[in-house]
Every structure is written in C-alpha cells, then in structure tokens.
C-alpha cells in the first residue's frame, strides 16, 4: 500500500523532495522536528497504523453483514421466503411472518415522503433563490437544528402534543371530509400510522432540504441569468433553469430522506401503536420493522424468535443500503466535478 500512496497526485513536487529530505537528514540535523535514520521505520509504522484504521471501517461493515447473516440463519431455514409474505407474528407457537412490519415501514415512510417532499423543496428553493442573503445562513441553520433533536425527544413531543391534537381536531375533520376514501376511517385514537407519518415527515425535512439546497447551489449561475434574460419570471426561471437542472440530485435527496425514514426507530415506536396488523386506514395502529426490533428484541425468548427478529434487521439493513447507495449516486451525478461548498 505504501508504494502507491502518493500525496495527492495532481500536485507536482512533494514526493521526491520528501525522500531526499529524509535521507539528507541522516547526517546533519536541519530542524528540531527532523528525526534521525529511524524516520523510515516510523513512517512505515505510522502508515500501518492509519491504514489499519481505514481498514477497520471496512471491517465494521463486513462484521455487520456477517453477524446479521449468521444469526438469522435459523429463521431463514425455518421459513424461507415465506417469512416476508407471512402475516402471523406469534412468538408462542413460533410462527413468524414479517409482512405487517414491512407494510408498516413502507406506508409510514411513504406518508412521510408525501408530506415532507413539497415542504423540503419549498424550503430549499426559498433559501437558495428567494430569500434575502442575510436570512440564508440563519434560516438554513434553524432548519438543520431540526436534525439535531434526538429521535426520542420527537417521540416525547409527539405523544404529548401531536397525538392529542390529531385525536381531537385533525382526525375528526379528516374522517368527516375524506372518510369516504377509506384512508381515514375508524376510531380516532390519535396514535397510529398517521401520527407516525407526520412525525417522520418532520424528522426528514431537514435532510431532504439541506441536500436539495446543496444541489440547487451547484446549478450554474449563468443558467439562471439566461432564463431571466429571456424574460422569464422568477418562478419560470426556477422551474426551467434551476429545478430542471437539479432534477436527479433532488430525487437523490428524496431517496436519502426515504432511507432515513425507513430506519427511524424511536419516534415511530412511540406513536405508531405497535400492533402487527395490516389496515388500509391511516388511523389504525401499525407496526414497523424498526419498532418491532425496539420493542421485542431484548425480551425475545427462544432462538427462533431472536433469529426472526435479526432477519428483520437484516432485511432493514439491505433495504436501507440499496436505497442509500442509489441516492448517493444520484446526488453525486449532479454535484460531481464541482467542489460542493454550500453557500449557506
């Protein structure tokens, strides 16, 4: 490894100088920082040390995959693919099917996306294109504060503030006006899929909007100027020159938000109701893959039970990895080549 490790190749120079410097130092001490002949040995040791740090990062990922695959074997052999299609979750008779959790994870995340995407893009467009320059920094900082609040505090707030509001105002209203769709029927508990979707939406807005902002910032300024010069209004300029250019990156940001929503645990666990049932109504309680892990993992008795839970963890892991890799690729396809320093 040490041989090909040149200091950033695009800059000419330092390598030969470094070699000569170390050798030349053997006889005469030029600087107090120069150490004698053992410099080469120390360099090797240092390289080895930081190389192993970097390698450890890779090792962690391998370890995660290894442990998850190994410990879910029991369940995989017992249920096979049926595990992901089964609706029964019965620890007593050791029958495990993950479908209600998969359904809950997908529905709550999609609901969150539906709510969060217009909001995030609106905020990003406002910060990059519309708001006065002095407001930009404080505004993006404030929105990003949302990302710094721990998940459990979102959950706490949701239980004591959001859920009561939903129960007494929002849900009765939705049931009356949109009850015929079947999405908003049943008793308004407050707790349930709707609450989970809303709290998730609040949590992913900062992620989507900050990445969208980054992506919008790399749209070349002359595109905007060209649109304006052709007589476009500001909105037409944003639509034609900015949003269209940044399309792939915005989709990437949305997918990144989805990845976050899929794996979010605490806040969802606290408000979704934790009942492994599939119901069309958003008022009904549900369950997600992450929250079943949170609730049942430490109490799982029996090897198959634990193994089934770990298999859910493995599935969650694989889905989030695929989603994240896809998103990174899309964001990268827009921002590549330009040094991304958001102008916030």
């Amino acid at each position, binding site marked *: 490894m040490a041989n090909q490790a040149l200091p950033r190749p695009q800059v000419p120079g330092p390598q030969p100088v470094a070699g000569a410097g170390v050798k030349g130092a053997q006889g005469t001490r030029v600087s107090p920082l120069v150490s004698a002949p053992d410099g080469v040995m120390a360099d090797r040791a240092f390289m080895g040390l930081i190389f192993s740090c970097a390698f*450890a990062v890779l090792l962690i990922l391998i370890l995660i995959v290894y442990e998850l695959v190994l410990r879910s074997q029991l369940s995989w052999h017992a249920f096979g693919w049926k595990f992901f299609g089964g609706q029964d979750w019965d620890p007593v008779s050791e029958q495990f099917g993950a479908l209600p959790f998969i359904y809950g994870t997908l529905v709550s995340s999609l609901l969150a996306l539906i709510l969060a995407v217009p*909001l995030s893009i609106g905020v990003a467009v406002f910060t990059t294109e519309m708001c006065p320059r002095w407001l930009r920094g404080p505004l993006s900082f404030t929105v990003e504060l949302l990302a710094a*609040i721990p998940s459990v505090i979102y959950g706490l707030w949701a239980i004591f503030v959001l859920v009561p509001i939903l129960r007494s105002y929002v849900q009765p209203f939705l049931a009356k006006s949109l009850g015929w769709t079947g999405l908003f029927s049943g008793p308004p508990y407050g707790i349930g899929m709707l609450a989970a979707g809303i709290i998730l939406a609040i949590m992913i807005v900062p992620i989507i909007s900050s990445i969208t902002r980054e992506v919008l910032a790399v749209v070349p300024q002359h595109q905007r100027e060209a649109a*304006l010069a052709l007589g476009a209004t500001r909105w037409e*300029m944003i639509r034609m020159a900015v949003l269209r250019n940044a399309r792939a990156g915005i989709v990437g940001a949305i997918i990144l938000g989805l990845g976050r929503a899929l794996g979010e645990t605490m806040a969802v666990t606290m408000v979704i109701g934790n009942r492994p049932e599939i119901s069309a109504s958003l008022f009904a309680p549900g369950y997600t893959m992450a929250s079943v892990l949170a609730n049942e993992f430490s109490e799982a008795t029996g090897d198959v039970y634990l193994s089934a839970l770990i298999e859910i963890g493995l599935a969650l892991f694989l889905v989030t990895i695929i989603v994240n890799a896809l998103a990174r690729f899309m964001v990268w396809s827009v921002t590549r080549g330009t040094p991304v320093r958001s102008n916030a």
Partner: protein
Amino acid sequence: MPRTATKSVPAHRIAEISLWRRARNQAATSFAVATVVVVLVPLVAIFAYLVYKGLGSINWAFLTQTPKPPGEAGGGMANAIAGSVLILGIGSLLGVPLGIGAGIYLAEFGRNRFGDSIRFVSDVLNGVPSIVIGIVAYAIVVLRQKHFSALAGGTALAIMMVPTITRTTEEMILLVPNALREAAYGLGIPRWRTTLSIVLRTATSGVITGVMLAFARVAGETAPLLFTAFGNQFWNWKLGQPTAALPLQIFTYAISPYDDWHRQAWAGALVLIILIVGAVAAVRVAVRHGTLGGVM
C-alpha cells in the same frame, strides 16, 4: 424581475400574458414562504414545549437521585445522566481515534481504489439504521459477555461515530494547503511527523468540529442502547454491567402510564438537549480560544 417588451408583440397582449405569469410567480413565492413557516412551526413548538415543560420539572431531586419504584412520585435520573456520560465516554474513546485515523488515511493516502471503497463504505455505514447497529453490538459484545453492559452500548455508539468522523476529518485535512506539506518535507521532516504535527494540527479545529457533530448525533441515540446498555435503576460504574442512559430513561418514562414519570421525561429531555448543546458549545469555544490548539 426586469422584463422588456419587444416591438413585435402588441402591448396589450404582453400585459395579458404577464398578468397570468405574474400570478403564478406570486403563487410560487407564497408557497415557498408558506413551506418555511410550516417547517418552522414544529421546531418552535418542540423547543417551546421542551423549555416550558422541562424547566417546570427539573429540581434538585431529579438531578441527584436514582429512580423510585414504578408509580411512586419523586426520584430522579442522576444515574442515567452519569450512565450516559460513561457510555458516551466509551463510545468516543473507541470511535474518535479510529475515525480520525481513517480520515487521515483517506486524505493523505487515499487517492486510489482502496480509498474510494473506504469512502463508499463509510457513506453506507452512515445510512445504516441505528437499531441495526444495536443488533450487531448485541451480537458481538452482549452475546459473548452473556449480559448487557455499558461496553456494549459504547461499542454501538462508536460504530455510529466512525463514519461521520472519518468523512469530516478527511474533508478538513484536504483543506490544508499543500505548500505546508512541501515546506515540511523540504525541511526533512518525516512524513508521519508532518502529518501529525503540521497537517493535522492545522486542521485541528475542523476535525474537532467533526467529532462534536458525531458526538451530538449519537448522544441522543436510544435505539442502539435498548439491548446493549439496557438501562438500570441504580448507580453503575462497571463497564461490564447494565447501565442506565438518559435517552433510554426518557423513552421508558414517556411510554409509562404515570404522570410523575411523564414530568421527569420532559425534564430528562431538557437535560439531554442542554448536555448536547453544552458539550458542542464548550468545545467550540475551547477551540476558538486556542486552549485545545495544542492537543494534537
């Protein structure tokens, strides 16, 4: 926006079109402003509630006592605060050197395929749900030790800190001008010494900011602690024993049926936020005033 009329279009038609277009422009602007308001409402609401409920609930007992049995009023979260400090300490001790080391590697020697794959892997790790990290820490520490422990909790948090620290360290070190490295090499200073005493030292404040970012992110994590640190009603300073943590305690109390526990959950949440913000602010100030400048 400046718009000029061209001669070929009659004046009344321009007025006609631009009325519609102006309306759409107005609508888009109002929509964007509205989204900002809608996004800021929960933020303000959460902080307002946290301060309002939390301040009314924090008292001396909360900060100095251990929890009372379920249903009994009083008691506090002192052991959970201490437990959080312990677990975060372990996490930082394991995660920070590893992350910084990997970041140095990527910045100074990582312009190759191996470096790219490490970069990709750390981005992937960043997206792994925290609950899954909890399972892995359970598998590698708890199952081997045969019981829940602070060490397992710390391991989980360390795994979560590494990718963030790695990437910010790399970014910060890349900002150090190459002329500095060349000057050091020119003086005959060995590579390792250049990297540690000159490059890393120049980037110190940035690297520390990255570390604090990672710290703030994991300080409030609950999911990976559920089945690693597990929680504890009593004081514990042993690494190998189940340990209380503030986020865990908040979770348990929030979903409990007792009013007094709800009150304490709010108090705990406020303390947690203050700890996170306080730690980050303290380090920022220390870096700015140079007291930490010579640490590395």
